[in-house]
């Protein structure tokens, strides 16, 4: 049981949602947007989230869009991870979604909720970083389309009152070869020890990782080292590992040394798979 109560609103348009937020904020209700509701209920119970009003975005049509037209894939933020995966609209994203949590939880966790999560992994962002996606964000001053690289730096950087409506990805990414691997400590279902996703565009490889550092990231520096051909795969990986952008986590799932060990092996699998060598 949540130790606090709140008002619940389910607007049916973007305007209604942002205006509600503004009003509730002015009334001191500390409103938050709600989508799957799994984080608000679980962290709320532990007093790690508090609000006096929630605004459920699931009734907003744009948040439920799922489209491929004019060479652009559009996925509404309110879709559950199961829906994104089953739609097969963007395999690069679907395969990342299906590795999050467990089957039942994925019927509830939404794409927008995962991207805006307080929990550090936010694994659904990996394919969105690799595909240079665009985030459609709504606020009181209108709707904006922003590059993932501007709005997602370690976490989703929304201004007060803004919410994520959709993500858009160029249709060319629907058919590009990719590799994704989630390594867990031991269980079938768990947060990642590390999850890496790599994408091959022409002859170069892009790399995004969750679980290695305290936030998910795409690293151009690591990509540069991985794409230096003419040396062995192992040397390329050694050089890439030197470019990890932040301290590597040591926790109950694994020490930093173990995470790096697993990273090396997983990167080797990725390169072998995408480059078709060995």
């Amino acid at each position, binding site marked *: *049981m*949540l130790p*606090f*109560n*709140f*008002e*619940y609103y389910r607007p049916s348009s973007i305007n209604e949602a942002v205006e509600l937020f503004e009003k509730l904020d002015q009334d001191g209700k500390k409103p938050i947007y*709600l989508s799957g*509701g*799994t984080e608000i*209920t*679980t962290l*709320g*119970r532990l007093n790690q989230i508090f609000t006096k009003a*929630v605004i*459920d975005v*699931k009734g907003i049509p744009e948040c439920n869009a799922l489209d491929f037209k004019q060479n652009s894939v559009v996925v509404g933020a309110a879709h559950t991870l*199961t829906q994104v995966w089953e739609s097969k609209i963007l395999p690069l994203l679907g395969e990342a979604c299906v590795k999050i*949590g*467990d*089957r*039942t*939880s994925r*019927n*509830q966790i939404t794409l927008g909720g995962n991207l805006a999560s307080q929990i550090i992994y936010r694994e659904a962002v990996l394919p969105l970083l690799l595909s240079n996606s665009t985030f459609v964000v709504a606020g009181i001053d209108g709707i904006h389309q922003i590059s993932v690289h501007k709005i997602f730096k370690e976490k989703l950087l929304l201004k007060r009152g803004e919410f994520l409506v959709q993500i858009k990805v160029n249709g060319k990414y629907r058919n590009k070869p990719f590799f994704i691997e989630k390594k867990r400590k031991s269980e*079938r*279902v768990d947060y990642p020890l590390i999850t890496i996703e790599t994408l091959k565009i022409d002859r170069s490889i892009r790399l995004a990782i969750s679980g290695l550092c305290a936030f998910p990231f795409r690293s151009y520096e690591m990509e540069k080292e991985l794409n230096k051909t003419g040396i062995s795969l192992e040397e390329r990986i050694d050089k890439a590992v030197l470019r990890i952008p932040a301290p590597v986590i040591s926790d109950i799932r694994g020490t930093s040394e173990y995470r790096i060990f697993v990273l090396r092996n997983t990167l080797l699998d990725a390169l072998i798979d995408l480059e078709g060598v060995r």
Partner: protein
Amino acid sequence: MNDELTLDINGEQRVATVRMADTLLDVLREKLDLTGAKRGCENGDCGSCTVLADGLPVKSCMMLAVDAIGKKLTTIEGLHDDPMQHAFIEKWAFQCGYCTSGFILNARALVNQYPDATDEIMEEWLSSNICRCTSYQEIREAVKSVLKEQRFNVGRPRSRNKR
């Protein structure tokens, strides 16, 4: 501040006075006397609170009751003489029984959605639930027996006269 809401549960319209922050699990157990869904971790991990919403398993500890409005909910109390219940008994797929209603509902949804479920699909679905008594092997056998029975029944002509 309390509100009255109506939920469609096991084919009945049930009215409850709830707080907007109440989870579906809270309302089922505390307001509607439907205690089949069990309170375990309340963190989305164990699955003992699993119910069906529009035929899909959900963990009722992490769904707001208000979010369930308009959905067709099934709790273990809504299954009567279901082959999955019989299979759990026949295969001894429980010991203390605390996880059983969650497992049965999850498995019921699985066989409805994937009548041809492979072992891999079955594992993926069942790994949403935890059995502290470790009856996993028996639970697998129970689910497999229902899948097998279902396939056998589908394969058989329903009535000779219909040819």
